[in-house]
């Protein structure tokens, strides 16, 4: 019963003309930018964050989530039509989607990807609505000790699936935590790491950090690589699916939705893991696994559904615990804080309209994408042809003005430029910036909770282990860490051994 009451409250919020409008703008803008070359969802959201500053918090979050799933729709379109994944989550879509396009079935591939995403998105919305309150209720019983341990667990878990070196991802998290502490210490009022720069006393501006490391760094990496994108088809036609294609897709969508919804909740999960898992499942259970990679429609339907379901259920830990499971969710939390909302389990009770409105708006956004995406395909195809050397000055410009607009000061532009340079070195060193963003968001919260738990326990560290919940989470974090480090160590040892023999 509660569920229905909640959803109707969300429905009332989401159907207000303004919110519907921002949902539409977000979804279309997200798709358009997702289709454009060289802009991933993280850079897109970072770039468009300043535009949402003047909106109501609900509208801002609705628009940002619209941008988020819109960008993933756009990413699928580029995967299918040009064989370049717009984002990591649509890497698998390239495999069979692009082959379908080569065989003249681009329309069908796009259609099934839109339908699959919509079905998965609808189911995932219901899952979020059903499970978020349960989790939030549990989290509300947490004291600072449990919260601190939860953040440790969340941060450790988020790097397990990170690409590349675990140690470097860990170091990036700690670096992010440190960057999060820059500014005035809320506990004592002391200035930390500000070096006498007055503008830093409010802390490092989150938008400057995100734009620097994602948008500016991407431009530096890509500016000189003007890849000419080869479109498969000039005109996309034949959106209708054949009977066989429908028959093959329906179970794939169902399986993808389930796998994606489950994997999306995990820290570090989200869309990417979900789409890879779904592709594996489809290939494994198919009677004709040899068709995969040659244009099997299940290979598009499953991962695309999983991707979208996972992208949506990733909101669960973000909304209920205030803990981001991936870089995009870290940006969403940053956006909430900019609007003066402290993320955490209390959001559901203090801001019910925002909480439920956001959830219901995701369903609307997916519906809009299904309805508009296919008719607008000629616009997307046109956008696909925009050349990067025209695009990147525009990206820089919009970021700069956005940074200026935050506080009507050019200081944020300088800060963003500095992060862009640092980001390029991290790119060279294969240090992923996303874990740093997670740390940056959680840094102040972690310190606050650590401080409070130590105060309550009179300085006794054992408090983290005498609370059973906290102990369980810390042990889980430790076990995870050992688990991911061990095989790597073994592999390294193996390599050395091989070299010696």
């Amino acid at each position, binding site marked *: 019963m509660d569920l229905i009451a909640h959803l109707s409250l969300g429905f009332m919020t989401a159907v207000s003309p303004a919110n519907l409008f921002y949902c539409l703008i977000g979804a279309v803008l997200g798709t358009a930018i997702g289709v454009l070359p060289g802009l991933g969802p993280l850079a897109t959201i970072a770039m468009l964050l300043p535009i949402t500053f003047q909106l109501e918090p609900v509208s801002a979050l609705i628009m940002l989530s619209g941008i988020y799933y819109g960008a993933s729709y756009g990413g699928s379109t580029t995967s299918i039509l040009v064989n370049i994944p717009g984002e990591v989550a649509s890497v698998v879509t390239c495999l069979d989607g692009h082959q379908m396009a080569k065989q003249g079935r681009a329309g069908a591939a796009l259609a099934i990807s839109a339908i699959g995403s919509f079905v998965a998105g609808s189911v995932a919305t219901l899952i979020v609505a059903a499970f978020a309150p349960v989790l939030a209720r549990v989290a509300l019983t947490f004291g600072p000790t449990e919260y601190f341990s939860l953040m440790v667990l969340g941060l450790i878990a988020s790097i397990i699936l990170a690409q590349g070196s675990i140690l470097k991802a860990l170091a990036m998290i*700690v670096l992010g935590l440190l960057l999060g502490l820059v500014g005035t210490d809320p506990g004592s009022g002391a200035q930390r790491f500000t070096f006498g720069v007055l503008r830093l006393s409010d802390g490092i501006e989150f938008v400057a950090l995100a734009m620097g490391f994602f948008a500016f760094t991407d431009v530096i990496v890509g500016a000189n690589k003007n890849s000419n994108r080869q479109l498969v088809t000039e005109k996309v036609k034949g959106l209708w699916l054949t009977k066989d294609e429908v028959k093959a897709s329906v179970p794939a969508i169902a399986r993808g939705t389930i796998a994606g919804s489950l994997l999306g909740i995990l820290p570090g999960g989200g869309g990417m893991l979900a789409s890879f898992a779904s592709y594996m499942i489809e290939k494994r259970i198919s009677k004709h696994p040899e068709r995969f990679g040659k244009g099997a429609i299940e290979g598009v339907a499953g991962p695309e559904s999983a991707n979208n379901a996972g992208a949506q259920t990733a909101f669960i830990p973000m909304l209920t615990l205030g803990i981001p499971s991936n870089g995009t969710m870290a940006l969403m939390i940053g956006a909430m804080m900019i609007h003066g909302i402290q993320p955490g389990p209390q959001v559901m009770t203090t801001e019910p309209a925002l909480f439920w409105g956001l959830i219901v708006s995701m369903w609307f956004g997916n519906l809009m994408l299904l309805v508009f995406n296919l008719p607008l395909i000629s616009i997307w195809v046109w956008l696909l042809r925009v050349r990067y050397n025209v695009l990147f*000055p*525009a990206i820089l410009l919009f970021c700069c003005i956005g940074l200026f607009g935050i506080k009507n000061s050019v200081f944020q*532009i300088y800060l963003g*430029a500095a992060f862009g340079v640092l980001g390029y070195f991290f790119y060279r060193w294969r240090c992923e910036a996303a874990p740093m963003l997670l740390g940056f968001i959680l840094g102040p919260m972690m310190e606050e909770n650590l401080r409070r738990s130590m105060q309550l326990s009179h300085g006794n560290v054992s408090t983290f282990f005498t609370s059973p919940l906290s102990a369980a989470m810390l042990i889980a974090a430790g076990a995870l860490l050992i688990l991911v480090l061990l095989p790597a160590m073994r592999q390294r040892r193996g390599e050395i051994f091989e070299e010696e023999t």
Partner: protein
Amino acid sequence: MTGKHFSADMKSGLFFLVVGAFAVWRGLDYDMGTASRMGPGYFPVVLGGILALLGVVIFGRSLVASDDAEPQEKFEAKSLFLITLAVVGFAVALMKFGLAVAVLLLVFVASAASDSFSLKRVAVLTVVLLAMCVAIFIYGLNLFIPLWPDLPSWI
């Protein structure tokens, strides 16, 4: 560009070590407090210590094991310099000469980083982008941005 002796792991390990050590050094200047009443220095020193330790481990491992190679592509010194210059130049010009000059500067300098530079394309792009900025940011979002040099500047 980069020597064979310095791998990505080595450089990043050193970087983390230096930043961590710096955080500890600066953090010790702040009040440490006690464990039950943590001062502003406590958490930064702990984090700095962990970061420095991770840096040492990453660096150390790079000495004994084959590790991540840097990306095969060359170091984009030109892009790094020009893109950063374009952004910083924009910020300086925005205050001194207004948006129009700043946009012109940004588009020209940034475009020079691209593999193909065409004066005509850059000129058209400048005009189009400037028009978009004025429409979206000045009229649409009411941002307080000086457009021309003769307007008083705000800092």
